[in-house]
């Protein structure tokens, strides 16, 4: 059975964020809520699971170090947190001096847990194809796909993070999804 991962709203988020500076339990709630989205965003941008884990750690270290400086009047917390993730990725690519760093072999070797073995295998095949198809997109397209579908951000927040206009964000996302779909069609993967 296909699992659905709704981008849930963290109830009482502002209170949790404020308390996170000095309350480990509050920070744990923030961590549990955002880890899947941060990790997924990073995985959409780079395929290597080891690098993705390392970068996820780096992002959360920065969040922990700076969470006291977050100001609600400057924008939503999700925008702040994904700005850190986005900037961390930008630094990573600057150091790596490469925009495509997905190892197709690594993508294929990833283990998949949960569900029945048959479901898990189908799910794994599907996600592997999507991750592979993602490598044909430009880094900017992967960034926007990640910010939209992994982070679950509005075009307005994505516009603030990337510096693109909202119209541009919409067009790039739509074209990137069409391109991704076309790559999946070439690979013989039906999404419907």
């Amino acid at each position, binding site marked *: 059975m296909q699992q659905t991962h709704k*981008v849930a709203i963290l109830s009482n988020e502002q209170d949790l964020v404020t308390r996170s500076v000095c309350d480990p339990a509050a920070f744990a709630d923030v961590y549990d809520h955002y880890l*899947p989205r941060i990790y997924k965003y990073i995985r959409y941008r780079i395929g290597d699971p080891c690098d993705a884990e390392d970068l996820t750690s780096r992002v959360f270290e920065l969040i922990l170090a700076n969470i006291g400086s977050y100001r609600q009047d400057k924008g939503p917390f999700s925008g702040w947190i994904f700005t850190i993730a986005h900037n961390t990725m930008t630094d990573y690519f600057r150091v790596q001096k490469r925009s495509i760093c997905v190892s197709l072999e690594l993508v294929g070797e990833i283990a998949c847990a949960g569900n029945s073995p048959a479901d898990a295998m189908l799910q794994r095949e599907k*996600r592997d194809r999507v991750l592979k198809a993602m490598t044909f997109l430009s880094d900017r397209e992967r960034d926007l796909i990640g910010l939209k579908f992994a982070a679950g951000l509005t075009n307005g927040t994505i516009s603030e993070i990337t510096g693109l206009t909202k119209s541009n964000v*919409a067009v790039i996302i739509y074209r990137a999804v069409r391109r991704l779909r076309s790559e999946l069609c070439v690979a013989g993967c039906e999404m*419907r």
Partner: protein
Amino acid sequence: MINDQELAERFCLDADRIIQDPSAEIIRVGDVPEEYIESIELARSLVSEGLIDQCGIRDQLRRRLLEKLAGRIGGLGDSDELDDYQLDMVAAGTGSEVQGDNCSVCGCSRSASAIKGGICPDCGRPRGSV
């Protein structure tokens, strides 16, 4: 005929609905191409896909961050002080050798390399004196 810009705007609005509820039904309004509906289904799949089960550091990272925060709250991790890794770097890898070598008077947990001049800044006595 809807132009690309309008289609892109509509696509993102539909995507926002799917993000809020991955099972939301998207109603086909007006003259949208078949390709649009297929792209919506792909967007639904991207939203629904969970990758977190592949993240092997979830618990370990959680524990490390919470320990760090607890240390900071307890005053052990003031921003002016060096963390364990930085101390190791400063001590050129001798961090493990001095581990556990605390001030015997006040028990402040400062390592030898962190106490300048051999005087403990917490109790003011020569380090190691009884």
